[in-house]
């Protein structure tokens, strides 16, 4: 690894070395030969697209998951962690994006949770814990009594409690996973002050973030991961937004992977008109038109509000205002059934949670939304069910032993095909695909892309949410970009570039092209 800015190589010994780390999950490679180093008194930013492996790498460092291969050295000494406790004993603390605090306990109890000392039946040293917590809270600048319930704190304040918790074990390495994701600008600034102070105290900070400005402002070095591998490393001096985005998305956008698409036809009639739609919790309304036979991509970072928008269009969380028109007629779904009755379907992001009943068979899952309409009397028409399921398995080329196989046993790609098949059997007019290829391997992805393109060619309007820029750019006729729950612009296919989308997703607000 090259030297930190300014210093001669070897001037500051590495505190942490992770070398050749690999990790596989049920056949999918999450990390492959990844190496990073961290030095005391340094902020290392870890960047990469969703699914690039940042969180997995940090979970390995925090002892949450064991690596399949590679070594971790602390102060030059090889270590293995068989649990969070072991990592903590080495003074490594992981602050998860979803804060791991018990809202029903007070601040002091949370700070010392798991490190109360003494035995399980020993009396709690409450007074002592409160005194120590008071000092720690002063250090992170949180003006709260140690006896305040964590449930009464804002997200930003809870972040401070997490940091106090890390300080309580005199952490030498603190990993922060998207710490500013739900902080206000003020709270973020306070966090940065504390991070700088920790750096001055000699703590190594590994900082995961998508936000360019704060990464450029805070970090001494920037390591970028892509598809579970090291994509490159930049020092603060050489880093620019463009360089980072280029490393993140990769230069070689593979051709032939995506099916050919006809030129976008802006004269096509609008099928779904969305005007000032207020998604509950969003700061502003969203407006766009979806044309017949069009694939409208939705790019943005996790938490940009795309899934919430999809759920509002599908009627899961009804809109708080604004209007939608489908085929010129008012469309205001209050529950999924309303949307389904109009031919608007959602293939959700979390297939296992929202898309499929895992213990049920392929046939039963395929028929689920339609089985009630197979006949008027309410008896179960298994004959139609099997006919429909067979047709969809054939159409999607789903690899399943039989249509009676439980979907739980299928691969991610085939599960997604079952989800798509269940909606295709009901003649969609608008199909919302939320992260259609998440957790799906490369071969099955290409197949899904072909199906999506074929559906658009049939005149179905497709709204495709994806955090994979390559995918969004490869398939979409236009790309809408969301950032912090606002629609920041819509880019025509001719004007698409990874740099442009990356910039819109992370920094400046750009008007629609």
């Amino acid at each position, binding site marked *: 690894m090259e030297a930190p800015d300014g210093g001669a190589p070897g001037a500051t010994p590495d505190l942490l070395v992770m070398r050749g780390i690999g990790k596989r999950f*049920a056949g999918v490679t999450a990390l492959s030969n990844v190496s990073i180093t961290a030095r005391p008194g340094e902020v290392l930013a870890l960047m*990469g697209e*969703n699914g690039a492996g940042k969180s*997995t790498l940090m979970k390995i460092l925090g002892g949450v998951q064991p690596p399949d291969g590679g070594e971790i050295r602390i102060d030059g000494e090889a270590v293995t962690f068989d649990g969070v406790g072991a990592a903590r004993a080495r003074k490594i603390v992981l602050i998860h994006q979803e804060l791991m605090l018990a809202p029903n306990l007070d601040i002091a109890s949370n700070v010392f949770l798991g490190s109360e000392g003494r035995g399980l039946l020993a009396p709690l040293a409450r007074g002592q814990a409160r005194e120590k917590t008071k000092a720690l809270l002063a250090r992170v600048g949180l003006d709260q009594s140690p006896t305040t319930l964590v449930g009464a704190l804002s997200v930003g304040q809870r972040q401070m409690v997490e940091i106090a918790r890390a300080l309580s074990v005199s952490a030498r390495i603190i990993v922060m996973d998207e710490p500013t994701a739900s902080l206000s600008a003020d709270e973020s600034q306070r966090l940065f002050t504390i991070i700088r102070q920790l750096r001055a105290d000699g703590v190594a900070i590994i900082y995961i973030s998508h936000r360019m400005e704060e990464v450029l402002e805070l970090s001494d070095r920037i390591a970028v991961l892509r598809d579970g591998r090291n994509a490159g490393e930049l020092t603060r001096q050489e880093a620019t937004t463009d360089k980072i985005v280029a490393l993140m998305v990769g230069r070689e956008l593979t051709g032939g992977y995506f099916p050919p698409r006809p030129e976008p036809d802006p004269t096509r009639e609008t099928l779904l008109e969305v005007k000032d739609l207020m998604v509950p919790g969003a700061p502003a309304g969203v407006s766009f038109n979806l044309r017949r036979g069009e694939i409208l991509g939705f790019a943005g970072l996790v938490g940009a509000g795309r899934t919430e928008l999809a759920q509002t269009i599908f009627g*899961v969380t009804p809109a708080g205002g604004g209007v939608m028109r489908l085929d010129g007629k008012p469309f205001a779904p209050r529950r999924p059934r309303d949307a389904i009755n109009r031919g608007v379907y959602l293939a959700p992001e979390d297939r296992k949670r929202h898309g499929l009943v895992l213990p049920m068979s392929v046939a039963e899952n395929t028929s689920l939304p339609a089985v009630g309409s197979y006949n008027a009397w309410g*008896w179960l028409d298994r004959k139609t069910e099997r006919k429909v399921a067979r047709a969809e398995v054939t159409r999607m080329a789903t690899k399943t032993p039989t249509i009676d196989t439980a979907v739980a046993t299928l691969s991610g790609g085939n599960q997604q095909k079952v989800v798509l098949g*269940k909606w295709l059997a009901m003649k969609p007019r608008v199909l919302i695909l939320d992260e259609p290829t998440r957790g799906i391997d490369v071969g099955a992805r290409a197949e899904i892309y072909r199906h999506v393109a074929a559906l658009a060619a049939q005149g179905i309007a497709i709204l495709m949410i994806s955090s994979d820029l390559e995918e969004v750019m490869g398939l979409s006729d236009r790309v809408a970009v969301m950032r912090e729950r606002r629609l920041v612009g819509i880019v025509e296919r001719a004007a698409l570039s990874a740099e442009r989308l990356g910039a819109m997703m992370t920094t400046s607000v750009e008007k629609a092209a």
Partner: protein
Amino acid sequence: MKRELGMLGALVVICLVLFLSNADFLGQSNAVNTLRQIAMLGIYAIGSGFVIIAGGIDLSVGSVVGLTGVIIARISSQATGGGGHSLALGVIVALGVALLVGLLQGLLITRLQLQPFIVTLAGMLLIRGVSQTIVQGGTLSLGSSPLLGLANGGLFKVNGDPLLPYPLLIFLGVIAIGSYVLHYTVLGRYVYAIGGNREAAAYSGINVRGVETTTYVVSAGLAGVAGVCYAAYIGQMSQQVGVAYELYAIAAVVLGGCSLRGGEGTILGIVIGSTMMRVIDNGINMFQLRYKDADGIRRLWRLDPNWTFIIVGAVILIAVVLDQVVHIVQAARRVRAGAPAAAGPPPAPPTTA
């Protein structure tokens, strides 16, 4: 189906052992009586099954069983304390109240998103208290009401006693209708889908709240039907009738292969589970071993009836432990075969934020 076959096999073995140890086990009197007990448990166990397969729980079943009889006695009995109205009126009101209880509990659970355990626990206590108040802490006799014929009468009389008691006929009817609804209708499919994945069912446009409410109505309604049978069988209604029955129902349903997580189980399994419960109950009384003591005198060794709960508890534990072991072995085999595990970690690389 495998689970049901396993339980059926175990049941046949138990019956055979009981018959070999004591031929009276299959004698007319004991057999018919056991069948009647199986039927009365099975009727409300099927109701509980609907709730459990949809992923809920109903603890108010036993109290509804008790309340039904108390209402019938209060309205229809000619004896002291009874209203002296027609039997039909009493039965109709009692069943109506049972259905209403189910509807109210179902609405509370689905509309206010309260936990079914708490709502039905409160229901259990509340309804028990209502029964107690109606009987004024004592008993209400059904007198010589024609209802008593329901439990003791039946078809195909041999030696003056029926081979097919009416409760068994009612049970067969409930089995037929229950099987039809659960296994051959769209409603049944929705019950399984909701138990398997509530959110996916909602995302498929299913009226989750309506279907869930229906399961609580079915449960309370069948508890009402069972309550009518118990009233006829017991004749003297007190606050004690039906105490802890909901737990027998849950035990029978779980023994029959339903999971308390929901989404699993069949009517056939519940029938087998109910049968198992009652056969074990009865078997503890019937089982005997002949032996000669030290003096060469023939003696009979019998189970101590105080062991009943120990044995019932042990049987339930053994059944679920065996089931879980089979699950773990199958999952391990799948992992070794390289296929994705049914409920394992998501194959997706965890999303980085």
